[in-house]
């Protein structure tokens, strides 16, 4: 059950400000009054948002997805990174259906899983239906304080078949990075070389729910934190998969946390249907392996062509 609430229209936020509102107008013309009305509306929205947060007057789904927080805090916070820093370009958005379940399978890279954030924002901002990409994250994400709760609030959940199938059955768009830590934490020298695709759990989830698999290739994330070393001993003590050494981290301290402004391209490939296979096909390991390989090959090929297309890293 959802209560009716004021949802800001996207064009309102995107509209360039007509007048500089800082200076008071000598004789307010019609343009000025619209700008003022705009400002009023924005203020009202901000206050309404604060009130909703303070009184708990918002809805979350069973997975803990908090749309109000995602739309008004989280997405606006990462949007500058998406637009100005990485200058993300998307291709093949038409391959994502407007409604119904689908499984987006992407390559994972970048030392810090920034690619997940950017892909989710890409789908939300560039898809005509503004779809939500519900990502499946590793255990570690949900163990960490703050990171885990933000991950849940922004619609993500644990990478397990139960959750994946539940989301897909309820018609959600689900995103998964089958390489996991092997992909995100690989050395810079191995960039754009796909790692092993897990055990194909994502394929069986798609088959069981009969949703299409959409291969997604992300170019650009590899260069944000080029990992040239790994403090393995320290990582083992802290119980994390790796502690990266990049050209700027830990050398420059906190400054090293700033990602390099590489140019990003995200392409969504042709959907691979699974509905015709039938749910029992998920129990056929050979079929699952073959399909996993097919998805992996598709992503690898389109990574190469995107790299050609991009030219230089920071272009």
């Amino acid at each position, binding site marked *: *059950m959802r209560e009716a609430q004021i949802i800001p229209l996207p064009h309102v936020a995107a509209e360039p400000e007509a007048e500089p509102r800082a200076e*008071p*107008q*000598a*004789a*307010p013309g019609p343009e000025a009054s619209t700008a*003022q009305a705009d*400002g*009023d509306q924005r*203020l*009202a929205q901000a*206050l*309404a948002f*604060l*009130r909703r*947060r*303070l*009184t*708990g*007057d*918002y809805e*979350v*789904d*069973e*997975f*803990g997805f*908090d749309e109000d927080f995602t739309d008004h805090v989280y997405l606006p916070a990462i949007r500058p990174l998406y637009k100005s820093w990485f200058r993300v370009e998307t291709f093949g958005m038409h391959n994502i259906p407007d409604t119904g379940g689908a499984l987006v399978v992407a390559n994972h890279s970048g030392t810090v899983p920034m690619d997940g954030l950017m892909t989710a924002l890409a789908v939300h901002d560039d898809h005509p239906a503004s779809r939500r990409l519900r990502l499946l994250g590793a*255990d570690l994400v*949900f*163990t*960490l*304080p*703050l990171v*885990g*709760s933000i991950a*849940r*609030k922004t619609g993500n*959940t*644990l990478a*397990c078949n*139960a*959750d994946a199938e*539940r989301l897909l059955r309820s018609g959600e768009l689900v995103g998964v990075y089958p390489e996991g830590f092997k992909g995100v934490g690989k050395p810079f020298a191995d960039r754009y070389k796909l790692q092993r695709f897990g055990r194909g759990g994502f394929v069986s989830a798609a088959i069981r729910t009969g949703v299409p698999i959409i291969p997604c290739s992300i170019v650009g994330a590899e260069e944000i934190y080029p990992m040239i070393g790994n403090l393995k001993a320290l990582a083992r003590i802290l119980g994390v998969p790796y502690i990266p050494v990049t050209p700027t981290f830990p050398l420059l301290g906190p400054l090293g946390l700033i990602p390099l402004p590489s140019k990003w391209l995200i392409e969504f490939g042709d959907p691979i249907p699974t509905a015709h296979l039938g749910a029992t096909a998920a129990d056929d390991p050979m079929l699952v392996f073959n399909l996993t390989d097919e998805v992996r090959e598709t992503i690898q090929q389109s990574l190469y062509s995107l790299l050609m297309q991009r030219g230089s890293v920071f272009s």
Partner: protein
Amino acid sequence: MAPKVVLVTGVSRFLGGQLAAALATDPRIERVIGLDSVPPSSELPPSSSRVEFVRADIRNPLIAKVISSAEVDTVVHMNIGTAPGGAGGRTSMKELNVIGTMQLLAACQKADTVRRLVVKSTTTVYGSSSRDPALFTEDMNARAVRSSGYAKDSVEIEGYVRGFSRRRPDVSMAVLRFTNFIGPTIDSMLTRYFSMPLVPTVLGFDARVQMLHERDALEVLRLATVGSYNGTVNVGGEGVLLLSQAIRRAGQFPVSVPAPFVGSLGGLLRQTGIADFSPEQLRFLNFGRVVDTTRLIDDFGYRPRFTTAEAFADFCAQLRPVIDPGRIRAIERRLLRAATLNRIREPVDA
């Protein structure tokens, strides 16, 4: 077929008393026998006068005699303690929960008249960890099994109940895994938690909490007693609230405590008598727990009348909020009016 003689253990607790009273209004049921080691509270509805109270411990061999002499055909086992404080320490709590259940089941096994068993279990058997799936179905097991406490007791109790069902396949059995209770009259872990003026939460964590209204809990227990559903079923309200969200809705003030200090805070609260939270209940504040209730709705045939949010709102109605939502709304209106007035005045001044 409706039961003729019902035995309810743990009748002096809120839900046990309410259930016994509700069963007593059912004309098809000839006798309702309530069992507990302490006398029932006095706030029971008038219909409860038909309930025959037997003051006995379920560990007492006397219950076997009660069951056989009264020809009990339906046993509702609700005498399972959740917090060590109420039972007088963890050892006696475990004694009462696990050994008590064993004794009761042993007595039931001997009694040929018994043909139905209803056990009030809990969703804590699924544990609570970061590696949990978003929703637990009845077929799933805990990812991280607790080594002690209520969750462990409940897992063991369910184990003994399964053993009983193997030895007495003729007895139909409903194991009800309840989520946390909430409501205006019930005294539960969550009602105590949300009634604190400063509500402690774990810094950086926001649990998803699923709740069940006391009236729905009672109705499910009643239906399970008079019905014939056989198997294990999750019982919870639809939807979830985030812990932070619930605290805000209650108008209470959340205080974030770093995870390493949560345990000692729990100890402090226990010692000062403000609240009695077991370590696993404190862990619950990290991750929460949500269960799938499809089986309850489709197979058991009951859809809770209150969603989690509605049940919580019903509880909050009798709570005195520290931060009044009405006042926040008034401040919002005042700020908005002030801002627009200023802006309208600006051009005139210039």
